[in-house]
């Protein structure tokens, strides 16, 4: 299966990845080869088979709705690229 460079560019946009033209070409070749491998699974008869989300068929555990986290804003924001008055800074979004 061929994933052409135009498709790669559009997937990269969906995934918010900037790619150079060279990277798009390289990714097209490699991802096409990998999709070829993946397409082998279409030969498996899965009629009547339920998808398996968890190998032990476990379900999401629930807990009571209580506040358990403590406020660590400063510790967590210490790693942020740009912060002001406790807020994360990004380029202007609204003109």
């Amino acid at each position, binding site marked *: 299966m061929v994933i052409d460079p135009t498709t790669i560019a559009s997937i990269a946009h969906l995934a*918010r990845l900037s790619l150079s033209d060279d990277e798009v070409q390289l990714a097209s070749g490699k991802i096409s080869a990998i999709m070829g491998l993946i397409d082998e699974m279409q030969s498996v008869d899965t009629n009547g088979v339920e998808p398996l989300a968890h190998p032990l068929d476990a379900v999401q555990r629930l807990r009571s709705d209580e506040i358990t986290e403590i406020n660590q804003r400063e510790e967590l924001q210490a790693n942020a690229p740009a912060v002001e008055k406790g807020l994360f800074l990004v380029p202007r979004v609204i003109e």
Partner: protein
Amino acid sequence: MSNKPLHQQSLTELSRSLQDGAISSTELTQHYLDRIKQLNGELNCFITVCEEQSLQQANAADRAIAAGNIKPLTGIPLAHKDLFCTEGVKTSCGSRMLDNWIAPYESTMTGNLKAAGTVMLGKLNMDEFAMGGSNENSYYGPVRNPWNREVIPGGSSGGSAAAMAAGLAAATTGSDTGGSIRQPASMCGITGLKPTYGRISRWGMVAFASSLDQAGPMTRTVEDAALMLNVMAGFDPKDSTSMDRAVPDYSATLNEPLKGLRIGLPKEYFAEGLDSRVEQTVRNAIAEYEKMGATVKEISLPHTHHSIAAYYVIAPAEASTNLSRFDGVRFGYRCEEPKNLEDLYQRSRGESFGSEVKNRIMIGTYALSAGYYDAYYTKAQKIRRLIRDDFLRAFEEVDVIMGPTAPTPAFPIGAKANDPVAMYLGDIFTISTNLAGLPGMSIPAGMVDGLPVGLQIIAPHFEEARLLNVGHQFQQTTDWHLRTPVDLRG
């Protein structure tokens, strides 16, 4: 006290010496720090070495021992794969994205080991975000195999495996999403255990594919893996997929006799693509088990061949979702002078993720995109059920499954760099246990061309004690696990 060099002693031996006062944790830690200084330049196992902090922890351990407060791992110097959050220490995941990230909290698993009195020497190199089987995909450069510097150590826990083989830590930790503990353990000649999905908390382990990821110990001996798992395993309310089941004493059952053990050999694991010398090594190991009274039976896991295809949909799909958190806003790398918010996202991610990570994010994005979801993701999850059910059926007839860990010994650095399909096919024997959530272990079983070869043992869900018992008995009658590279014996 054993007369072997310290860095070749097992945790059991080291623990006894620490308890007897034959050596202090400070001396032991300094010994490893000296070896890291001497050898890390050529092997590139460590991304971060915590010299000052480890000596402080060793000092605290020595005071605890002097006060008579010694536990099995008190004062033992360990190193962790660099995807476990370690409070106050850089946790890079082998990525430029997290090159500047200091973990503000401790993962549950490393926290358990810390509370057990262990010393942390540092953080180990890995394929970026654990994506890879050769440790060539690290922002910090490839790790070299201590047995031969021109070949890969395996991956993604390549730094963890190579550090063990070179004697740079007493034990290490790794993570295994599709074979990332067992395959490098095989290629570096050490013991590597991937427990049942949910056995060890994933909290604070940077997520790659959440339904497959599982942490585990990488050690010199199976007995050491049991000591590590005793501390690493357990229920954690902070991980919603952690299993609430009692942790047995894994050391207590290591010496159970194996007479009557039923071993299954999947015919699909001894098929085309398996190096004939690796096959012979594995068959010799299985013959050892027959001498111990085990019986061997051929079985079939008919969907093995499709595990790679299903895995390379499920793992990238989950990865593309998990890695969306790296947006250049709250932590990690941010590009210079973004023009607008979208440019900030795209260039921060584009400039800091390596090509393998980008390719997998794109495969996952594609497989999950509108119109393709059923054809790829749902189909893969159906095949996942068939794979799991193959194992459940097999375990009605056998107690453990054995086979090779990897189809070949370690290959030269760069040999498969441009052929992702060839690289992925190397995971054929390890991936299906992740899809099925089963525990698996690789132990050294022989050498081919001067490179180690591992035997893989797979057990039913939560039967880690059986795996460890079976592995330990092999190490009582063979000495492959005691071999070390000649020039690193020191």
